[in-house]
């Protein structure tokens, strides 16, 4: 029944090319035997580097069939970052996408003693390269096919190799980007990955009819489970986009039914929509805002199948026709059944926006060490501020000092070549420390995560300070792309803000604000005014929530450059590295707390091609008057 169904598609040359499960088997067998001919065997590690391409997924499968262990890497890592992981994992072979990745590997080859071959997908630009260690995937597969044609026993040998693999064997090593220090290699067994994938499919009743789009980094455990393991378990089709820039368009063409993304992706969809609406005609704009209002009021209730008045249903139905439907179509989410957000806390406003449109967006709490699944929200039990209940076969408990622990069949084997770290994280009876602070909400029975356990701090007066909570509130404003909140062991809270170039750029255009660069726009007083208004609103909302009212923002600045993973300021999964930023921008930090009106800063930046340069700027700092109760009540 599966043989003739599409297993994977890739948009290439403007057309969706599809492979059925039977095709995939043929491709993988040829690839696998080809790799064996190149000397890859049981226990060997091999790197997989590139964007989401069918042949890179096949590479993982082909290697695993032989008992080899794939080590996927982030495709946009610079060579130095790769050198550590590749050397640490002692990879024997690297399967890469294109010339860019081949160049990176060649530049660090001296450090990779174990590396014997580089296998590449796209030959473009590689014509004049030394062939000695370079092989195209096509040629590897040809090697495999020739070996099969020459010797019929090769097939039985291959099948025996597959059968020799055990569930407890090491299946994959995923290096976590890590908000601090060197990446750690999380070892997952076949059982970890497969049982988790199967439970995940059962939890949301995912079957062969799903369509997903694979666009998240191969090295992320999320992609490995959702676009690879779950597809192989349920038999649904995985679609690889044409280019990173075309994902939204490609998703629209496919109409995904099951989606998984970090909050940033959803934030970005809202930002783009809001910016577009600002440019739309007055009529469309009013229609949009009116029906978004309707959706915010009733949409979530309708989605949760609660009782709502008839006129609300009618209005919502009209809104679906005029606004929500077309919008969901634009997002490529018309056919969505289950959409997850994970990896980081999502702003409640963003979360509710999608729910209000009728998109079944749910929160999931997972970790690489758990093969993703720890908790998830069951359908109909959705709250913006919880991460749900433990998944199938998962046990969760919270320690006295607030740290969340979990135990499940997906729990990792250990960190590769690091028994010390493994012992720190994993207890002998299988409990894993998540490093997150949280608690079970007595009302709903759901788990709530406040922040990273180590990030939750206290102001000097003892007030609890959760930086991410404040940052997320700020990031809901389309004009703010990234925020860094500071306050641990300080007298008050300050923030450093990154403006969103798309949103603020469009605003500047409409308001005749002239600028030449990001830096110039960021320093513009009118931009400061705008950000100030946003922060005042955040302060008011913090105050209204009581618990966090004492951590209102007192001072802020707009950073002169965008935080960038290439400079180490964000992780590869684009999480803010607060400690590193505090160190790097020490002069700004000092100025924020010593009352200065401005500060000079020079930072080294790394360009995409790896060269370095310096950006210097004088950054202004503004004070914010904290909201007080009387003013807030008047406003409310």
């Amino acid at each position, binding site marked *: 029944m599966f043989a003739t169904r599409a297993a994977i598609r890739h948009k*290439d*040359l*403007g*057309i969706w090319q599809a492979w059925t499960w039977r095709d995939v088997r043929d491709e993988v067998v040829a690839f696998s035997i080809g790799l064996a001919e190149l000397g890859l065997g049981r226990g060997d590690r091999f790197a997989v580097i590139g964007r989401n391409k069918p042949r890179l997924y096949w590479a993982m499968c082909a290697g695993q069939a032989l008992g080899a262990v794939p080590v996927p890497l982030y495709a946009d890592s610079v060579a130095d970052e790769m050198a550590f992981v590749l050397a640490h994992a002692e990879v024997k072979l690297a399967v890469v996408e294109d010339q860019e990745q081949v160049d990176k590997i060649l530049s660090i080859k001296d450090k990779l003693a174990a590396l014997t071959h580089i296998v590449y997908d796209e030959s*473009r*630009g590689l*014509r*004049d390269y030394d062939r000695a260690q370079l092989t195209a995937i096509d040629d590897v597969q040809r090697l495999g096919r020739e070996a099969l044609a020459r010797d019929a026993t090769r097939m039985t040998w291959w099948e025996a190799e597959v059968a020799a693999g055990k569930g407890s064997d090491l299946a994959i090593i995923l290096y976590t980007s890590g908000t601090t220090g060197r990446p750690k290699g999380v070892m997952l067994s076949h059982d970890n990955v497969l049982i988790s994938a199967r439970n995940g499919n059962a939890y949301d009743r995912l079957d062969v009819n799903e369509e997903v789009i694979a666009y998240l980094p191969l090295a992320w455990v999320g992609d490995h489970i959702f676009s690879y393991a779950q597809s192989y378990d349920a038999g649904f089709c995985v679609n690889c986009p*044409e*280019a990173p*820039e*075309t994902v939204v*368009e490609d998703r629209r063409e496919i109409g995904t039914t099951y989606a998984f993304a970090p909050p940033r992706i959803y934030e970005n969809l809202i930002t783009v929509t809001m910016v577009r609406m600002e440019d739309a005609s007055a009529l469309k704009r009013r229609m949009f805002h009116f029906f978004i209002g309707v959706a915010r009021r009733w949409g979530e209730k309708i989605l949760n199948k609660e009782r709502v008045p008839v006129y609300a249903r009618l209005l919502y139905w009209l809104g679906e026709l005029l606004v929500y439907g077309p919008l969901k179509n634009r997002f490529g989410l018309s056919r969505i059944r289950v959409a997850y957000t994970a990896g980081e806390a999502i702003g409640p406003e963003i979360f509710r926006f999608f729910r209000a449109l009728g998109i079944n967006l749910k929160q999931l709490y997972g970790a690489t060490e758990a093969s993703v699944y720890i908790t998830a929200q069951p359908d109909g039990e959705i709250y913006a501020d919880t991460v749900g209940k433990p998944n199938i076969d998962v046990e969760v408990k919270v320690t006295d000092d607030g740290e969340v622990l979990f135990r499940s069949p997906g729990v990792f084997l250990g960190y590769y070549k690091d028994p010390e770290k493994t012992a720190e994280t994993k207890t002998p009876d299988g409990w894993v420390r998540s490093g997150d602070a949280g608690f079970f909400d007595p009302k709903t029975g759901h788990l709530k995560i406040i922040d990273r356990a180590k990030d939750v701090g206290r102001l000097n007066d003892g007030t609890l300070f959760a930086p991410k909570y404040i940052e997320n509130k700020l990031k809901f404003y389309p004009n703010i792309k990234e925020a860094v909140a500071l306050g641990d062991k300080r007298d008050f809270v300050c923030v450093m803000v990154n403006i969103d170039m798309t949103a603020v750029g469009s605003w500047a255009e409409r308001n005749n604000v002239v600028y030449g660069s990001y830096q110039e726009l960021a320093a513009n007083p009118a931009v400061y005014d705008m950000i100030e208004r946003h922060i005042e609103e955040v302060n008011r909302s913090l105050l209204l929530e009581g618990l966090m009212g004492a951590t209102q923002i007192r001072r802020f600045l707009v950073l002169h450059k965008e935080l960038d993973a290439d400079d180490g300021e964000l992780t590869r999964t684009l999480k803010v590295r607060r400690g590193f930023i505090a160190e790097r921008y020490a002069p700004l930090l000092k100025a924020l707390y010593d009352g200065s009106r401005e500060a000079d800063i020079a930072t080294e930046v790394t*360009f*995409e*091609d790896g060269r370095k340069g310096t950006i210097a700027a004088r950054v202004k700092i503004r004070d914010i008057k904290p909201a007080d109760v009387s003013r807030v009540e008047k406003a409310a």
Partner: protein
Amino acid sequence: MRAPAGSAIVAGDTLLAVDRVSLAFGGVRALRDVSFDIRKGEIRAIIGPNGAGKTSMLNVVNGFYQPQRGSITFKGVTRAKMRPFEAARGGIARTFQNVALFKGMTVLDNIMAGRTLKMHRGFFWQLMRYGPALAEEVEHRRRVEDIIDFLQIPHIRKIPVGKLPYGLQKRVELGRALAMEPELLLLDEPMAGMNLEEKEDMSRFVIDVNNHYGTTIALIEHDMGVVMDLSDRIVVLDHGVKIADGTPPEVQGDQTVIDAYLGVAH
């Protein structure tokens, strides 16, 4: 892409030779007795200060201007002057100093326009868009998609060119020229007005076109860093006269060239 049939010229042979060409507009002598050649498979740069006659030279090569004296030999055929359609049919394509695209048409349509010369079915058939004409269009589209992939612009395939930033428009223009499957590609300041990153991207594409499609390239460029890195050989013009011709190091060390660029004390 294949080279046009009947071409027996192999890499290293002279593809195009300009012999003692002179061009004048009334009293202005734009080119004076300029001779140089372009070999198959190379990247040939034409440089010189403003008003040196670089663009005039390209215009002579593809028949926009008709020189008063001299001759042009292209693929073994010597002519006193080139006509634009002879140049185009013969496999010479070019891009312009100021972008010359159809602003209201999409990227895809603009590049498809570059295939016009390769379409065999007449107007009537194309209007019907049926049978052989459709099959032909599918084939052309395949070629165009190949170029779109090559230039890494699939994300803007359906966007009107007028909405694109300048750097991308330049890339689209290169795409349209490539759609002609040219044997000789003339690029008039492909990197003018670009920032460093765009320049590096464009340089990469120029090298890739040369490498991947085997297209011979003649380019005019002001950025000396780019010229020195890219070209196999360089011809230097000044006030319509050729003052140097050779490999990048040779040209770089040439005193006349240095004088022409930096000026000499009189």
